[in-house]
């Protein structure tokens, strides 16, 4: 191929014909910023960050779209280019919550907030599930200063959380179009494209259809290529960036697609395509289901034996002994049923075992949705013809087939009816937890990587069988290593492929894994017509309780809830809180009272969506009923005349300081209220506070309203102007801590409302304990207000994050099928953009 010589920044670069200027610069190690460019996509030229100057070419061409030409003189750096790039980046960030670029407290905040908060709407870094791997943020961090000081233009698109597996927040989208371009590349006709024009322009499906109805096959490539937090894997998003990636293959159907396991701290968080190529696409189950199966909360953890009808957890050795004893005893009538969704090695060892013991053997193939595999006669036939002892490596048999067995050994990772009857139960490692090889329908042999840790005491089946072979004294099953087993497998036949590959058609997704219904393990699969095990319908909607009178999203992610709770309203005092439960099965969570009306019998709360419980509450509609409201709880704030009182509120704290301001002013104090938000569009209740304060000041982290910074900057301003007698701060732990550190040298009494994890709220459980001046206090009954200068902030931060992983795992993965059926109901637009 012909070569081209060009000069970039004075350096001669030689590239192959067809290369772009950007390729040439990269080849020469000259960095050019870009965001819409991606190595696996065709040039697009939308972000305009990669502009360069080329001699003889008018204006500022984008290097990603300009082919390198012989003798071309390119400049990638000049004062004008720098200015244009910085301003373009600022413009880009003005359409994306931009604290990464502008917040003066970013570094301090992140050092105290190692994990992102599981917010509904992402309005800042701390709420962004993508911040560890955000290309946009990396560009922002390198950009340095600002020039245009633009406010954020928050588009207020609805959050899209109705589709299976993916959460979409187009308020973060910068329209780099990587998503629909990769969709087009992999699937030909893309399921998504840019829709609408001007400020309404965004990525979406035709006519606002749900992705399930848009032709999307849920390969997840759009999520994996999205440079921002716009498109996210609902299961994986809050786990943070994977620390290990391992190439492996999917064994859930005969296709045996290659995949890359994403592992964080030994836990499989996702599986994704190995390359952004059409041949590498995955089906919905391979892309999104794998991690959910492996992380199923019902996983079998311990070897168990049954004796006289009672089951006991035992160590591996005892369990294997029991298994070997049982098998020896029932050798003559033994049958072994395994799943085809297993490694060749596992299957080979089962087969060897069957040969050695003279047992019947069958491997149950994977089948697409709507079909059921045929079981051999010797398990379903007339009782006399059946095997009376079984080894089951999965959930294949109904209760009627299991009754009356003389011996049952279950080797599996997931629960089943057979487990209840098993004489010996051995917990197996699944999927990414065991190594081996897999033969695909096309005959290829692929390596399976062991990339994540099996839960509890679960072990790979080949290890279990190997040990079992030793216990039974079977010489043919004595191998030196897994490699020897692999070598011994020989030429096994390739499995029969599905008529239509699941990665091309969501209607053919495998319905079973080891006989377990995939929809039981991956609830969102119900959206594709896969059925889960019928469960008794349990109404979890409260009929009696506390009526929600009003609910409104005051600012993105900030919800006002007015609840009928006459007893609480009658006794509430400033500074107190309540504990709410949305449903009878909900967690108890505390919320500060933002206002109340004793006469009307209602209380008002400001709630920020930051996890499962607050989301349940935020999604309630007016007229619905909360299962529980208890309160007022906590000590009221000691309201007295002290002189000048300065209140600081951030996030939900803006609501929390309102009753305090009112009461303190009524008590004769001069009250200054200070509120902060990341940007002007996130502020609320400014007027309400003005009505109960002598003065209200505002701070924003992007300077779009009031002071540039947060509450602490304004506190400093106030102290420079006048004497202050008390400071009170309510908001995130970071803000309260900053205030505490700021006011400490001033020797002005400072109070903060602490927000540790709380359960009962009445001083019984001790979950909310905090250390104040070295003394243990309960935030629920001794607080919530404490002397800010005595708080052990590190301990508080540590205790607050104690259940971080459990909180992430508690987020719902199922989809609301009725919301999927009528996605357009709330959006009566035609899609033309007007």
């Amino acid at each position, binding site marked *: 191929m012909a070569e081209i010589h060009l000069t970039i920044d004075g350096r001669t670069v030689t590239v192959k014909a067809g290369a772009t200027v950007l390729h040439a610069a990269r080849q020469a190690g000259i960095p050019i910023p870009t965001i819409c460019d991606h190595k696996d996509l065709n*040039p697009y*030229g*939308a*972000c*305009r960050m990669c*502009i360069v100057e080329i001699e003889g070419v008018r*204006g*500022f*061409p*984008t290097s990603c*779209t*300009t*082919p390198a030409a012989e003798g071309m003189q390119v400049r990638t750096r000049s004062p004008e280019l720098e200015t*244009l790039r910085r*301003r*373009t980046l600022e*413009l*880009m960030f*003005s*359409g994306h919550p931009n604290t990464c670029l502008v917040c003066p407290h970013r570094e301090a905040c992140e050092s105290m907030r190692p994990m992102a908060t599981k917010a509904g709407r992402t309005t800042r870094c701390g709420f962004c599930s993508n911040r560890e791997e955000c290309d946009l943020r990396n560009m922002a961090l390198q950009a340095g200063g600002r*020039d*245009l*000081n*633009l406010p954020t*233009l928050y588009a207020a698109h609805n959050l899209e959380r109705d589709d299976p597996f993916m959460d979409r927040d187009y308020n973060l989208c*910068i*329209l780099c*179009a990587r998503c629909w371009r990769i969709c087009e590349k992999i699937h030909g006709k893309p399921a998504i*494209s*840019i829709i*609408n*024009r*001007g*400020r309404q*322009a*965004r990525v979406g499906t035709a006519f606002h259809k749900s992705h399930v109805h848009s032709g999307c096959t849920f390969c997840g490539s759009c999520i994996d290529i999205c440079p921002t937090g716009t498109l996210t894997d609902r299961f994986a998003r809050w786990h943070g960036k994977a620390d290990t990636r391992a190439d492996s293959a999917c064994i859930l159907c005969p296709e045996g697609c290659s995949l890359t396991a994403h592992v964080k701290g030994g836990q499989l968080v996702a599986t994704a395509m190995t390359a952004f190529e059409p041949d590498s696409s995955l089906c919905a189950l391979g892309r999104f289901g794998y991690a959910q199966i492996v992380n199923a909360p019902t996983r079998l953890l311990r070897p168990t034996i049954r004796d006289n009808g009672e089951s006991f957890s035992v160590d591996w050795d005892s369990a294997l002994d029991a298994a070997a004893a049982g098998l020896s005893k029932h050798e003559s009538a033994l049958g072994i049923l395994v799943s085809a969704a297993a490694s060749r090695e596992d299957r080979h060892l089962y087969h060897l075992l069957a040969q050695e013991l003279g047992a019947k053997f069958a491997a149950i193939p994977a089948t697409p949705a709507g079909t059921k595999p045929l079981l051999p006669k010797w398990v379903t036939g007339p009782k006399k013809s059946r095997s009376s002892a079984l080894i089951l490596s999965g959930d294949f048999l109904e209760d009627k087939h299991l009754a009356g067995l003389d011996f049952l050994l279950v080797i599996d990772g997931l629960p089943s009816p057979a487990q209840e009857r098993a004489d010996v139960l051995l917990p197996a490692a699944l999927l990414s937890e065991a190594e081996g090889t897999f033969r695909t329908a096309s005959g290829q042999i692929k390596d399976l990587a062991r990339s994540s840790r099996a839960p509890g005491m679960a072990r790979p089946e080949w290890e279990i069988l190997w040990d079992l072979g030793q216990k039974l004294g079977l010489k043919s099953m004595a191998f030196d290593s897994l490699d020897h087993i692999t070598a011994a497998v020989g030429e096994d036949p390739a499995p029969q492929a599905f008529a239509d590959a699941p990665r091309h058609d969501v209607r053919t997704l495998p319905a079973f894994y080891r006989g377990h219904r995939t929809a039981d393990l991956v609830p969102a699969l119900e959206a594709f017509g896969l059925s889960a095990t019928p469960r008794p319908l349990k109404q979890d909607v409260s009929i009696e309780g506390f009526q929600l009178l009003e609910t409104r999203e005051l600012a993105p992610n900030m919800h006002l809830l007015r609840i009928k709770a006459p007893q609480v309203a009658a006794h509430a005092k400033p500074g107190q809180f309540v504990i709410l439960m949305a449903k009878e099965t909900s967690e108890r969570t505390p919320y500060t009272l933002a206002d109340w009306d004793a006469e009307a019998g209602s209380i008002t709360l400001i709630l920020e969506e930051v996890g499962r419980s607050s989301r349940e509450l935020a999604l309630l509609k007016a007229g619905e009923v909360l299962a529980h409201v208890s309160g007022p709880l906590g000590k009221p704030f000691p309201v007295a005349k002290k002189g000048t009182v300065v209140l600081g509120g951030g996030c939900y704290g803006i609501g929390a300081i309102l009753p305090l301001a009112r009461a303190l002013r009524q008590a004769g104090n001069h009250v200054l209220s200070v509120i902060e938000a990341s940007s002007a569009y996130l502020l609320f209740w400014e007027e309400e506070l003005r009505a109960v304060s002598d003065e209200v000041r505002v701070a924003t982290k992007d300077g779009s309203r009031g002071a540039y910074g947060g509450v602490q900057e304004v506190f400093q301003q106030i102290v420079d102007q006048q004497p202050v007698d008390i400071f009170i701060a309510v908001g995130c732990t970071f803000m309260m801590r900053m205030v505490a550190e700021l006011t400490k040298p001033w020797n002005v009494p400072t109070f903060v409302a602490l927000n540790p994890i709380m359960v009962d709220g009445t001083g019984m459980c001790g979950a909310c304990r905090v250390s104040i001046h070295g003394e243990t206090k309960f935030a629920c009954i001794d607080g919530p207000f404490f002397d800010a200068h005595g708080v052990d902030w590190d301990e508080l931060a540590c205790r607050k994050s104690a259940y971080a992983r459990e909180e992430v795992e508690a987020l719902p993965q199922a989809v609301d099928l009725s919301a999927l059926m009528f996605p357009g109901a709330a959006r009566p637009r035609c899609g*033309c953009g007007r």
Partner: protein
Amino acid sequence: MSFADIQQQARQSWMRFARPDVPRVLVGSATCGRAAGALDVLAAFREQCADDPALKGVDIHEVGCLGMCYAEPLVEIRGSEGSSVLYQGVGVDMVPDLVREHLGRGKPMVEHAACLMAGPPVEGLSRFQDLPMIRHQLRVVVRNCGIIDPSNIDHYLARGGYSGFTRALGMDQDAVIEEIKISGLRGRGGAGFPTGLKWSFARKSAGDVKYVVCNADEGDPGAFMDRSVLEGDPHAVLEGLLIAGYAIGAGHGYVYCRAEYPLAIERLRTAIAQMREKGLLGRNVLGAAFGFEITIKKGAGAFVCGEETALMQSIEGKRGMPRSRPPFPAVSGLFGKPTNINNVETLAAVSAILEKSGAWYAKIGTEKSKGTKTFSLAGKITRTGLIEVPMGISLRTIIEDIGGGVLHGKEFKAVQTGGPSGGCIPAKHFDLPVDYEHLAQVGSIMGSGGMIVIDHESCMVDVAKYFLEFTENESCGKCVPCRMGTQHLLRMLTDIAAGRGRVDDLETIRKIGDTMTKASLCGLGQTAPNPALTTLNSFMDEYLAHIEERKCPAGVCRALIRFSIDAGQCTGCMACTKACPVQAVAGKKKKPHRIDQNVCIRCGACRQACKEGAVMVE
């Protein structure tokens, strides 16, 4: 049938139409005329003539637009006496009189007439070509508009139509391109790229399959040149497309026309069918070894689809979004094939050039801007309409002589040219010659030919805001500077108009404007800040008045004005109280009225209603 036979046949058909002794009624029924009620007028003429046995033989035709929009509906009547008189502002109620007097008795009604089109002189009527609005015009592109029946190909043929194409067919392809080069014709879609050069690129591109495209996606607010030509003389454009196809070696042409132009599309359909009938389309056009087909593609009305790369995406069935060049369409265009795209007006000029010669065309205009240009004259001007003038004519001639000056004799403040991509030219440049170079010198552009006259009652902040509202809405959203830049410009202009502006906003507008100009992907984004930047340059004082004094000098920006009634001038006629939509004006008959500022919504209805000029704005 040879082309000579076709022409002969057409001439006969035209003779019947043009014979001075046959009474004839021509109703200007382009979209502009229809909007003014031309179809009702047409029906009324048909009805009247049908009722009278003596008038059974009257020829009644629809014709295109003569460009005198201010006088629509226009009807040309030729009575038995042979004088063709153009009547203006014809309403259905006038039809019986016109039929009786002019058609019946051969007595033109001078009181309703605009001018004499042809035939023996009529006392008190000047000839069409002597009208102040027409005198300075040179009608090349609109040569047939309003004169011929656009649905009759014979009319076009008889007036020289398709002779340019037959001439081209007799020439070498390169010679055709050379002819265009000699003419000096530059693209009339806005950018002004030399047409001959553009053709030569596509001609040189390798490949058997090539395309020519007619860009009829006229989208500038207030621009209607292309529509008028398509509605009034579709063959002039199609002939140009045919010539372009022959010259570059394309076998297929597309006309990309916005769906909002249903009449233009209908006329195009009819014209294409007629072309086929006459052998002007098909495998061997006029028996030559040149095959050509034309497809009409309706656009859904996105402004950006006028941009050629976006337009091609749209024809391909994709979302209309521009892409970076290179590759240029001449190398890789529609469906990846070499493609040449020309605007409607350019193609209509092409057919004239091939008919009359490039040298003839090159004599018109200035050294660098040859030929004529159409403009839609709109805004605060006495005679709104579609005009065609030689390049280099002064703004003053256009506005004062052709347009009749600013409406109601008010003071001229600025003229906006080039639509949303253009700029505002202040009064001090009144004598500027209108051509590509001079318009660019003062920060504006020729664009596709919108020309909006602005008087002292128009606020320049409001004008800029209007255009930014348009571009903000029409930005395709692909590139960052345009998508976000238009939003921020509009936000700041809205703030300034609402009295919330800050002085540093002006600097930010300049910085963002500069970024958009230099870093946007396509022409839309690169030129979108122009309305803001040019008004900022020429009318800084008006911006500062909004920001520092919280006042709108023109009395337009609602948040900054208040209406009051001068008790001395008010006669108490109650006209304003009736006009007020919110009952903010109180007062008794024959007593001075008052406006309640708390109720007033500053719509200005009272001011418009007042005959005494007693309603003041400050």
